[in-house]
């Protein structure tokens, strides 16, 4: 028998406690004031204490037996999708066409049914749509082409 019977509640409680502690530590330097004249530190501290307290209760409840299954963590799809999103950060240098295609291609590869040719075509179509709607239509201030072919900064 393990000590932690409901890992979901236990971990969630720890996470909220961490946020509570962070709030208390970071708001340390903000003036508390008093109830009639609240300083910037008053409300955050109340929230920090509540998060810490309720978080602790949730963690303790995680020690009770339950039928809840263990959470199954699969970080790979999330990491790949977010990598694709991150590549878009380079749009000010690489332009929206290239970064949109890369975003679609990279994030597509997170799927178990990934087909690279299909992802490339789909990425190209979406990149054209992005240029038409967001650059020409809404005037989004990003270059279309990469700096090495004359776009970018």
């Amino acid at each position, binding site marked *: 028998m393990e000590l932690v019977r409901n890992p979901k509640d236990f971990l969630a409680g720890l996470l909220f406690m961490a946020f509570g502690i962070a709030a208390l530590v970071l708001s340390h330097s903000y003036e508390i004031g008093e109830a*009639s*004249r609240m300083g*910037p530190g008053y409300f955050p501290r109340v929230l920090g204490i509540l998060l810490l307290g309720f978080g602790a*209760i949730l963690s303790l409840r995680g020690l009770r037996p339950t039928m809840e299954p263990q959470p199954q963590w699969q970080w790979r799809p999330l990491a790949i999708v977010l990598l694709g999103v991150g590549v*878009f950060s380079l749009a000010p240098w690489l332009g929206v066409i290239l970064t949109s295609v890369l975003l679609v291609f990279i994030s597509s590869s997170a799927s178990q*049914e990934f087909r690279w040719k299909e992802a490339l075509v789909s990425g190209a179509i979406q990149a054209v749509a992005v240029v038409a709607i967001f650059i020409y239509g809404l005037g989004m201030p990003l270059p279309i082409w990469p700096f090495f072919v004359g776009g970018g900064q």
Partner: protein
Amino acid sequence: MELLSNIALGLDVAITPINLLYAFVGVLVGTLIGVLPGIGPVATIAMLLPVTYGLPPVTALIMLAGIYYGASFGGSTTAILVNLPGEMSSVITVIDGHQMAKQGRAGPALCIAALGSLFAGSVAALVIAAFAPPLANLALKFDAAEYFSLMVLGLIAAVAIAGGSVLKAVLMTLLGLLLGIIGTDVNSGVSRFTFDLPELIDGIGFVAMTMGLFAFGEIAVNLEQADRRSIVTGRISGLWIKWAEFKQAFPAVLRGTGVGTLLGILPGGGATLSAFASYALEKKVAKDPSRFGKGAIEGVAGPESANNAGAQTSFIPMLTLGLPSNAVMALMVGALIIHDIQPGPQVMTSNPDLFWGLIASMWIGNFFLVILNLPMIGIWVKLLSVPYRLLFPLIVLACTIGAFSTNNNMFDVWVAMVFGVLGYIFIKLGCEPAPLLLGFILGPMLEENLRRALILSRGDFTVFVTRPISLTMLVIAAGLLFLIAAPAIRKKRQIVFAEER
């Protein structure tokens, strides 16, 4: 009569070509995402918010509202034809709707869903028009103490009514409140939790946050299993309903409309809760409850009417009190603030065209929905065959660009990434993200009203219980907390929400 002149004003606003166009675009997009599982109205509205910056506020709101009630409408198509709810609000429609489709009665099911929604939507719009002004008048008398208590009540009610663990929902709300106050404190000018980042001085962008929590996290979870959608229908023939079936369904439509209209107004209510409550009611009043689950038309007519009515009346607390009752309404409040309109009871008097125009557009939007859905059903069914592996990168791209375009700043894209990771963790740990969003939107307002109330009372905390309206709201809030903590009700609540899964 004042009501009539108000409605006339609303119609005047709603039938201008630009507003008609955006109402149509809104319900079209809403139907689209309603039909497609894997993307909900929250992520879509967040995605399209930046696009509406250049529009007049009323036009922006008309479109965003159309997405919400359009989604609750479109979700039923998928529920009936594919045995998979397109939206949470259509989860219950699957039970009898898909049975009807299997028996070759997809046509009547789709038809009654559409007509029931149209009827419910029209009634709900009338109810908003009739009940919003008195409520706003009452709210105009509110002082800081009342507003504080009202927000506490709203947040607690949202926690109590939403499914899942109450404690986790409370914690998510608290975390939302904390995230909401990031940025410059208006009273002291102190920057709180900004880590000296200039981008955080105005706080975390709620559009980017919503995308991370509701889109990226969700997509990552969906990608863990293979796509299991399969379409079971051949051709749908006879998109009409027999008189006998109509007579059987109509009382259910009436009851569903009533249930949805009432529950939509409650904090934490809205389309989903209304549909569940209506199904339970239909089962209770039916002479032969055993027909349910085997293709009872009331099981489609009631919930589908209720979810549309609920989607619309959930605008009442948002428009009259500035109090969002669910995640979509939280986004609407954010949209109003972006357009420099402070949500609250004064909206109706300071922006009457916005208020009445929005309501009138709901009527028009509901007609668009029937036109869009019944004759064009074949197109929506075809859309369902787009595999998820093509769909989700499109959502990722649209969210990324949407996040960037809120401030034309990459920082928002990174915010969305951070909240994507958090969103994934929250889903895995069984924490609903909606309460966090409510807390986030209400955080600054809650702190401000708490401060103001206590300045006025010179630091005396009894101000919240000595003023009658404030006391009433706190008593209701405490009663709700007590109710959900009571063991007998807790058990019942678990049964009710067990059906959800």
